[in-house]
């Protein structure tokens, strides 16, 4: 069945079964491998993308459930102001080790900062608790989120 998807602002048509997870549409059909498979069960957050700005687990979101919602992936989060701040902070704080979870971490952090401009430690704990990191970069993630929150470089630009 054909589905018209809005992926990072572009209309993309895919001809797939209805229950195929969005993750595999992005990676296998559209060749966008920035979003990662971690568990396939919505437990790790590596597959996080945004639908209409809200984070979802693409491994557990059937393509038929997407509808007309705008999909934003790690490939395009840097086009947003908050995404740019997160990416700058991630580099400044040298957050990634192996990097595998970091697409999901960045997508979750961007959603947090869009909703809460100056998150407390509790806000960060609760928002980021669904994104796991085997390398244990949690301390740097927390610091980078705070740096991104304070970053005023592109505000108003």
């Amino acid at each position, binding site marked *: 069945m054909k589905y018209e998807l809005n992926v990072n602002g572009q209309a993309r048509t895919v001809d797939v079964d209805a229950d195929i997870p969005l993750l595999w549409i992005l990676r296998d059909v559209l060749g966008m491998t920035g979003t990662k498979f971690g568990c396939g069960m*919505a437990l790790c957050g590596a597959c996080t993308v945004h639908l209409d700005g*809200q984070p979802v687990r693409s491994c*557990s979101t059937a393509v038929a459930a997407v509808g007309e919602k705008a999909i934003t992936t790690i490939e395009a989060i840097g086009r947003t102001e908050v995404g740019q701040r997160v990416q700058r902070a991630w580099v400044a704080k040298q957050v990634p080790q192996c990097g595998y979870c970091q697409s999901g971490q960045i997508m979750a952090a961007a*959603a947090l900062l869009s909703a809460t401009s100056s998150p407390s430690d509790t*806000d960060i704990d609760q928002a980021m608790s669904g994104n796991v990191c085997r390398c244990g970069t949690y301390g740097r993630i927390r610091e980078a989120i705070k740096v991104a929150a304070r970053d005023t470089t592109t505000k108003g630009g």
Partner: protein
Amino acid sequence: MRNITASIATLLLFAGVASQGLAQGSGARNADRTASAEAFKKIAEVLRHPRCQNCHTVTEFPRQGDDRHRHHQMVVRGPSGRGTSAMLCSNCHQEKNSPDGLIPGAHNWHLAPLSMAWEQHKTDKALCESLKDRSLNGDKNVAALVHHMHTDPLVLWAWEPGTRKPPHISKEEFQALLKRWEKTGGACPTN
């Protein structure tokens, strides 16, 4: 004199009939109340089932599983029972169960408000009274409660819970119990 006697006799006759009617009415009402309370005790078995009670928590988080452990990944209630910022319920819980049945889904997935918490009620009486309390239940009378439990997608999900166990009372029997409870006055058990 004869008229007075006849009047008294008539009065006594009516009093007897009225008294018998009152007794019969009282008996019928007691029978209704008993039937109502018995129906609610069965309804409570569903309300206390994990598929229902895991979201009618008194905590700042939902529960999971038949053992009702705290929902993994430190999911929290949030300001409106829908999670918080980057960890909303809808991150994972879609409009229907995931295709493999592992992740529950239904329209408008969220926690019941704290005022509708049930897990702290130790008796069916307390559960019933809380359920019926219009200051706690969104101002629902018995009819509205019954309607809610017939039609709300989150309630109905309990019988289509993917890989999880549904309540041991079928949906059809549950709805019949609700109707019986309503029809017999929506009374609460005495314990």
